[in-house]
C-alpha cells in the first residue's frame, strides 16, 4: 500500500533568462544590473521539482503539496500569476532577498524555519523537493543545507524520477557522471530530492487552477514573515557573466561527424 507524502517544494524566483543579465558590484556586494526591475520566473530547476511533486501528490491520495519560497514578496506575487496556474499548491512565503549572491546558509536556515512552522506538516511523511541547483548562480547547495538543518539524512541530487513502491519505500533515479542514472531505493520519508529536469513537461497555464490557488496564495503573501539575511562576512572576489563567443566559418558539404568532431574539439580547448 502506498502511503501518503507531505511534499514541500522549495523554489525561489530568478530573472527571466532571456533578459540581459549583467553583474554589477554595489555597496552590498554583487548583484545584477536592474535586477529588481527584470521580469522574473520561478527558478526552472525548482519548477521541475514542483511539477513532479504535484504529479506525485495527485497519484497518492491524501498527499499534500506546499511551495515554500524566500523572495521579495512583490516579485513572488508576480511570478505566482503564472506559477499558480500550473498545479494546485499551498504557498508559504518568506519576504526577503533572493538571487545568486545571497548567502546560501542563511537562506537555508530561513527556509527550514518556515518549513518547521507549517502547521499540518507531518515530518515523518516529508519529501523535501527543490532544484539540485538554481538558475541564479548554480551553486547547488541550498537544498542540501535545508535538509541538514531539518536533520534529513537521506538526500538525492540530480533526481530525474521517483517511483513510490507498495511497501512505502520509493525508488529514485539520480543523474551521475557519464550521462547515466543511479537507481536507489529509499525505505521511506523523510528525504531530500534535488531535482534535475524530471520527465514531465511544463503544465499549461490554467487560470481555473490559478483562481483556486489564489484564494490561499494572496493571504499567504500577506502573512509572509520578513526574513533578513546579514552580510556575515561573505565576500565575492570576482563576478562575471559567462563569456560568449562567435566564430563563424563558411563551409559546404561537410559530413556531420566531422562537424561534431570539430565542435567537441573546440569545446575541450576551453
Amino acid at each position, binding site marked *: 500500500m502506498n502511503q501518503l507524502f507531505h511534499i514541500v517544494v522549495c523554489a525561489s524566483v530568478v530573472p527571466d533568462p532571456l533578459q540581459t543579465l549583467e553583474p554589477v558590484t554595489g555597496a552590498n556586494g554583487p548583484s545584477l544590473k536592474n535586477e529588481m*526591475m527584470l521580469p522574473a520566473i520561478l527558478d526552472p530547476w525548482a519548477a521541475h521539482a514542483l511539477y513532479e511533486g504535484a504529479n506525485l501528490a495527485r497519484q497518492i491520495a491524501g498527499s499534500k503539496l506546499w511551495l515554500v519560497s524566500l523572495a521579495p514578496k512583490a516579485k513572488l506575487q*508576480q511570478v505566482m500569476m503564472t506559477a499558480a496556474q500550473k498545479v494546485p499548491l499551498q504557498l508559504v512565503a518568506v519576504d526577503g532577498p533572493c538571487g545568486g549572491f545571497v548567502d546560501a546558509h542563511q537562506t537555508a536556515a530561513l527556509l527550514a524555519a518556515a518549513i518547521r512552522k507549517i502547521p499540518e506538516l507531518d515530518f515523518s511523511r516529508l519529501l523535501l523537493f527543490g532544484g539540485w541547483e538554481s538558475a541564479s548562480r548554480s551553486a547547488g547547495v541550498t537544498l542540501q543545507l535545508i535538509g541538514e538543518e531539518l536533520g534529513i539524512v537521506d538526500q538525492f541530487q540530480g533526481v530525474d524520477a521517483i517511483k513510490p513502491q507498495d511497501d512505502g519505500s520509493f525508488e529514485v533515479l539520480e543523474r551521475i557522471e557519464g550521462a547515466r542514472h543511479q537507481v536507489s531505493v529509499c525505505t521511506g520519508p523523510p528525504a531530500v530530492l534535488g531535482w534535475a529536469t524530471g520527465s514531465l513537461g511544463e503544465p499549461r497555464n490554467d*487560470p481555473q487552477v490559478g483562481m483556486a490557488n489564489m484564494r490561499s496564495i494572496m493571504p499567504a503573501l500577506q502573512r509572509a514573515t520578513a526574513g533578513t539575511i546579514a552580510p556575515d562576512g561573505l565576500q565575492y572576489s570576482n563576478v562575471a557573466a559567462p563569456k560568449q563567443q562567435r566564430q563563424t566559418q563558411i563551409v559546404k558539404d561537410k559530413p556531420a561527424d566531422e562537424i561534431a568532431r570539430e565542435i567537441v574539439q573546440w569545446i575541450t580547448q576551453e
Partner: protein
Amino acid sequence: MATSVSNVRSETLRTLPDDNVRQILWRFAERYDLQMLVQSAREVARGPVARLVAEGQRANHDWTDKKAELLDAFDQSGITAVFMDPEQGGYIAGPKNLALALIAFELAWVDAGAATCSLAGCLALAPIHERGTPEQRAHYMALAVPPAPGEDRVAWRGAFCLTEPIPYVGVDTGMLSGKLRVSKWKKGDDPLLQVEKRGRFITNMGFANFVTAAVDSGDPRIKGSCMVIIEEGDPGVYDRGTPTRKLVHQLSSTCDPIFNVFVPASRIVGGYTVKDGIIIPNYSHSEVIEAVFKRTRVTVALMTSAKLLSAVEPVIRYQRGRFRGSEQAKPGSLRYEMGIQQRQDALHRLAGLWAIGEAGASLGFAAARLYDELDPLEREKASILSGKDIHGGKTELKFFREVNKSAMEVVRQENSGQTNSACYTDLKADPLVQFALKDAVANVLCPAAKLWNTGTGSNAMREALSLMGGYGITEDCPGFLAYKWMDSQLEATYEGPEAVQRRNLSVTMTSELFLAQFRQWILEMREVAGKRPGTGACSIATAMQLWLWTYQHLQSATDADGGALYQSARQGVTFPLADALCWLLAARQFILDVVELETKGPEHPVLAEGLPGTLSFFTDLCHIQAARSAGEVGRICAELVFGYNRHPAWDEEGYKGCYRSDELDSLEGLIPGISSCASDVVGEDGSHPVKAGPCASCKGLEGFQRIRTKLDGCLTGAQLAKDRAAEAIAKVMIPEALDYPR
C-alpha cells in the same frame, strides 16, 4: 514629472516597461484574475501561435489541422471560457470587456489573426449574450464552454454572419439580402422558419457549429429584420463555402458560406411576439449589432496598438546590433554599441511611434474599462425602464430627455464646484444619470479607439517596419513586423471600416452630454499641466479648445456658396473633425494613465527602484504625443475653418479689401510707415502683388486665430522632450533575445 520643464533629467528609462507598469497604467493591478489571464494568453501567443507563424502557416488562407490546434490551446489556457460567467462554466465574474481586451492585446502582440480567431467565437455568442433570451443564453453558453476535465463533450464554435456578397451588406448594414420566411406554422406550435443567407468574409466559418446570422423578413407574416441562430445539422443546406483568399490574419478561418435551413422560431435572437398573426422579433438586426459592436470593436482597436508596442524591442535590437561583427565596429566603439541608434532620426521616429502605440493602448483599455462600468448600469437601466413599461423606441428617447437634463445638471454643478449639495449627491447616485453620462462618453470612445488605433496605428506600423530596413519586409523579420503591418489593414476594416467609425463619431460627438464632459476635460488637462508641465497636457487643453471652437463654428458656418457645413452628407467636414477628436482623446488618456503611474507607482515595491526613470520617459512620450496631436488638430481645424471660404481674387470684389497706391501715399503723410505694413496694394494701372489674390479676411475668425497662435506656442519644449526620449531609447536595457517563438 513636475520638474520636466527643465531639460536635465537624472533618471532615465532603465528597462522596457514590464507587467507591473502595465497593470498600473491600464488599471488592473488589483485584478489577479486578469493578471493570470494575461500570463495565460501570453503563453499561448508566444508559444503555439508564434510557432505556427514561424513554421509558415500564414502562407495560405486555408484552415489547416495545424491551425486548428490553436482552438485547443485557447480552450486549455482558459481563453475560450473568459466569455462565460462562472455559472456558465467560466471563471471570471462580472463584465468581461477588459478581460477580452487584454486577451486580444496579448495574442495580437504575436499575431492578430490568432486574436481574431479567438474573439470571433465571442462575436458569434455576443448577439445571444447581449440580446438573447435567458434560455438561448444558457443553452449556447453551455455548448460553447470548453468541457471540464473528465467531461465527454466537444465545445461548439460559432461564427457571426452579417456581411453579404456584393451588392449587399458591407459598410451599409441596412440592405440585407438574407431572408427569413415562415415555412410551417401549425396553430399553437412554434413556427418553423426558413433561413436563406449568404455570407461573405465570415470568420470561423471553416469550423463553426453554429452561426448568428442577420436576416430580413421575406414574408408578410414576419415583421422587420432580426438575427437568427443557425446550427450545423439543421435540415437544409449548411455550406461553409469557399475560403476567402485573404492576405491577412491567416491564423483565422474566413469563408463565404451559404445557408438555406429550417429552424424553429425560438432561434430568433431575443425572442419574438405574435400579434395579429405576425411574428414580431423583439430586436431588429441593427439593434442587436449595435449592442454587440460597441463592445467588440474596442478589442479590435487594441490589436493594432499591441502590435505597435511589440515592435519597439525588435527595432531597438536591430538598430543596436546592426554593425556588430564587422571589422570596423570593434566592441566598445560607438558603432558597435549603438549601431543605427547613433543617428537621431532612427531614435526620434521610434519615439514617435512608441508614443502612438502607448496612446492607442491607453485609449482602448480606457474604453474597455468604461464598458465594464457601463454593463451593470445598462442592465439596471433596462430593469428600471421595464418597471416603467418603457421598451425602447420613442418613449425611451423621451424618458431619457429628462434623465439627460439631470445629467447635465450634474456636470454643471461639478463645474461650478457645487458638489456638496444634497441635490448633487442624489443626482450623481442615480443609476440612470450615471448611465447617461458614461454612455455618452462610451459612444465616442469606442469608435474613436477603433478608428484611431487601427488607422493611425497602421500608418505607424509601416514606419516601424521601415526602421528595420529590408529585413522589415521579410518573413524572417523578428517580431513578424511585416505581417503585423499588413494585418492592421484588416483591423481597420472588419467590424466596420474607418468610414463607419467616422460616421458614428460625427453623430455621437455632437451629444450635449459628451460635449459638457469634454469641456470638463479641458479644465482637467490644465490642472494636470499645472502639476506636471512636462506631459504636454497644456497643449492638449488648448487643442481641445481649438477643436471645440471649430466644432461650434461649423454648426452655424456655411461654405462660400451658403451651404451648411456640419451635416451628415458633408463627410468632408464631419469626418476630419472626428479624426481630430480621436487624436485628442488618445493623447489625453495616455496622460491620465501616466498620472496614474505616478500616483500608484511609488506604493509598488518592485517598481519603486526604476520608477523615476520610467516616469520621466513616459512623461516625455506623453509630451511627444500631445504635440503631435495638437499639430494634427491645428491643421485639421484650420483647413475646415478657412477651407470652405472662397479666396478673394484680383477683381472688383477683391480690390475692396486692398489699398490703392495713391491712397496709401496720402496716408503715409498722416501715418508714417504705413506703406511698409500694407501687403495688398493695387497700383493705379491695376498692377498688384504676384500671388493668388488679396489675403483672405479673417473677420469673425479672430477667436480661432487667437487659440491657434496660442496652440503653436504650447508646442514649446516638445522637441526637447523628443530629444530626451530618444536618449532614453538609446540607453534602455533590453532582453538578450525576443521571447517568441518559444
